[in-house]
C-alpha cells in the first residue's frame, strides 16, 4: 500500500454524497462506490429514466433537499472516481473486494468512509412470504423509482414514520388504501410532542399525512396485531387483532415494516467493534461523535452507523469526512466540526422521541404462531427454531443459526435476524446483549458464479 491510495466512500445516499463533497472541497479525489444505478441512495432515489414527474411528485416535502443533493453530486463527477452499480462484497487487509458487471476488482484503501444505509426492519407473521406482501420501503421504491404501486388496494401495517408517508403517497398516486394499521398504541404518538422540540417541521409534516388520510376516509387503527394474510397464491386480505376482536379486511397487497435497521456488514468485515444499542434493539458499530471507529482510517456515516434519518446522514457524512481530513494531517475547520456534532446530538434526541412514538413490538414472539416461516430463504419455521433450542443450553445467536439454518440463506439474516434474536432471548430467558450478534460473512451479497478477474 502506498500513501497515495485515495480515500474511498462506500454508498451514495445523503451521507456518502456529503462525505464526497467535503473530501473534494479539501482537494482530495475520492473513489465513490455505490450499488445504485444513480446516486441518491434509497430516500433520494432517482427513477431509471425520467417519467414526467417533478421533484415534488417524487420526494414531496423533501424535494428541495433531493434536488440539491442530486445537483451537488452531479457537480462532483469531474472531481471523483465514481463507480455506480458496484458491490463491495468483502473488506480484508485494507483491500476492498468489488463486483461490477460480473467483474471482480480489488482496490486498496488507507481511508474509508462507509455510508451503507439501512433496510426495512421486519418481523415474520403468517403469510408474509405470499406474493403481494412487501416492505414499506419496497412499496415506496416501487412508486418512486418505477412509477408502480404494489397492488390496487393496499393495507399499510407496522410502525415507523414511513407507515403514514407511504400510505399517503399511494393514495395520491391513485391506489386505494384499504387501511393504515399501526401496531403501536395511540398513546405512543404523544411522544411526538417531545420530538416536536427537536424538529417541529418534521413532526408537523408527519402528522399532516395522518390528517390527510383521515380526511380522505382512510381508516387508521392503533394497537393492531396482524394474525395472517388471507389467500393461498397471493394476497386476498389481511386478518388482524385490534383489542379483543379479530378483523379481516380485503386487499390485494400489504406494505409493512417496523422502521429501519442499519446495514453494518461492511463495518463488521472492516474490523469495527460493536456495542448493543437498547433503543434500536440491535448491535451498532462503535464510533465517536464524528464517525471515527476503532479501526484507523475507517469512518462511518449515515443510517449504517445507527438509524438517524436523512438529515442526520448529511451531517454525519460531512463530519466523517472532516475527521478523515483532520486525521490525515490537513486542516479541518474545528468550529464547523463542533457545530455539526451539536446538530448530530439534536438529531439523536429527535430519534429517541420518534422511536417511542413508533415502537418496536416487543411481544412479537408471544403472539406469532409456530408454523410461521421465520427465515424466508431457507423456509425455517418459528417452531423449528424453537425445537432446535429444546433440551440444549444454546445461548448464542451464531450457534443457533448454525444448528437451525435460519439466517443462513441468501439474505444473510437481513430479513430474519431480528426475529431470530427475539426467539433465542425469549426462549432462553437471556437479554439481546447476552446472545450476541450474527457475524457478517463475505460475500455480503450473493455473487454470480461466473465472477472473474477484471482490470483494476
Amino acid at each position, binding site marked *: 500500500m502506498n500513501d497515495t491510495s485515495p480515500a474511498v466512500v462506500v454508498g451514495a445516499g445523503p451521507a456518502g454524497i456529503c462525505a464526497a463533497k467535503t473530501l473534494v472541497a479539501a482537494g482530495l479525489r475520492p473513489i465513490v462506490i455505490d*450499488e445504485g*444505478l444513480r446516486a441518491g441512495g*434509497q430516500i433520494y432515489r432517482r*427513477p*431509471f*429514466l425520467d*417519467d*414526467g*414527474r417533478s421533484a415534488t411528485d417524487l420526494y414531496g416535502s423533501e424535494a428541495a433537499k433531493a434536488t440539491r443533493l442530486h445537483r451537488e453530486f452531479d457537480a462532483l463527477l469531474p472531481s471523483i472516481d465514481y463507480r455506480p452499480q458496484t458491490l463491495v462484497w468483502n473488506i480484508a487487509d485494507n483491500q476492498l473486494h468489488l463486483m461490477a458487471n460480473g467483474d471482480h476488482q480489488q482496490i486498496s484503501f488507507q481511508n474509508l468512509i462507509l455510508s451503507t444505509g439501512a*433496510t*426495512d426492519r421486519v418481523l415474520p407473521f403468517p403469510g408474509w*412470504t*405470499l*406474493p*403481494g*406482501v*412487501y*416492505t414499506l*420501503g*419496497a412499496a415506496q*421504491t*416501487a*412508486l418512486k*423509482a*418505477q*412509477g*408502480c*404501486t*404494489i*397492488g*390496487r388496494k393496499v393495507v399499510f401495517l407496522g410502525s415507523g414514520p414511513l407507515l403514514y408517508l407511504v400510505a399517503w403517497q399511494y393514495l395520491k*398516486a*391513485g*391506489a386505494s388504501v384499504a387501511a393504515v394499521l399501526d401496531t403501536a398504541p395511540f398513546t405512543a404518538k404523544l411522544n411526538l410532542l417531545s420530538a416536536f422540540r427537536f424538529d417541529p417541521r418534521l413532526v408537523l409534516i408527519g402528522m399532516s399525512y395522518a390528517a390527510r388520510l383521515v380526511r380522505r376516509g382512510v381508516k387508521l387503527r392503533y394497537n393492531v396485531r396482524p394474525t395472517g394474510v388471507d389467500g393461498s*397464491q*397471493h394476497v386476498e386480505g389481511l386478518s388482524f387483532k385490534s383489542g379483543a376482536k379479530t378483523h379481516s379486511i380485503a386487499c*390485494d*397487497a400489504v406494505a409493512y415494516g417496523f422502521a429501519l435497521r442499519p*446495514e453494518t456488514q461492511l463495518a463488521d468485515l472492516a474490523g469495527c467493534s460493536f456495542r448493543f444499542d437498547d433503543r434500536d434493539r440491535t448491535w451498532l458499530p462503535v464510533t465517536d461523535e464524528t464517525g471515527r471507529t476503532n479501526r484507523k482510517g475507517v469512518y462511518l456515516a449515515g443510517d449504517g452507523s445507527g438509524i438517524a434519518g436523512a438529515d442526520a446522514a448529511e451531517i454525519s457524512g460531512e463530519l466523517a469526512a472532516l475527521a478523515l481530513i483532520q486525521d490525515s494531517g490537513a486542516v479541518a475547520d474545528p468550529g464547523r466540526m463542533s457545530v455539526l456534532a451539536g446538530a448530530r446530538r439534536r438529531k439523536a434526541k429527535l430519534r429517541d422521541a420518534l422511536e417511542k412514538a413508533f415502537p418496536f413490538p416487543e411481544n412479537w414472539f408471544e403472539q406469532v404462531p409456530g408454523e410461521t416461516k421465520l427465515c*424466508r*430463504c*431457507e*423456509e425455517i419455521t418459528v417452531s423449528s427454531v424453537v425445537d432446535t433450542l429444546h433440551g440444549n443450553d444454546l445461548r448464542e445467536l451464531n450457534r443457533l443459526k448454525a444448528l437451525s439454518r435460519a439466517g443462513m*440463506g*441468501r*439474505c444473510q439474516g*437481513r*430479513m430474519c435476524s431480528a426475529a431470530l434474536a427475539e426467539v433465542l432471548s425469549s426462549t432462553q430467558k437471556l437479554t439481546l446483549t447476552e446472545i450476541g450478534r450474527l457475524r457478517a460473512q463475505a460475500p455480503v*451479497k*450473493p455473487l*454470480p458464479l*461466473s465472477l472473474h478477474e477484471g482490470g483494476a
Partner: protein
Amino acid sequence: MAAHHSRSQFQRHFRRDEAPIPFTIDGIAYSGRRGDTVLVAIMSVTDRLRQSEFTSEPRAGFCLIGACQDCFVTLACGMRVRACTTPLEAQMAFITRESGNE
C-alpha cells in the same frame, strides 16, 4: 404446476406510454416498458417471480432494494438475476416453473 396467472400484482401509474420491451415467461410473450426493472416488468403482467426452493410456494420479491434476495429469477440460459436491480432487456426469457429451479 398451475397455468400462468394473468392477474397482475403491480399497477403502473407512470411510464405507461414508454416504448414496449418484449420478453417471455416460460415461453409466453409479454411486454414491459422502457425503464422497467425485471421485477416490475414481470409483476406488471403476472403475480409471481418464482417458486421457493423447498416448499414450491409462489414468491414475488420483498424489499425491492437488493437486500432480501427474494426476487432471484432464472433466465433460459441458466443464469440467475436479481429482478429488483436488473434493468429489463429485450428478448429476456424467464423460467419460473419448478423444473427450472435447482
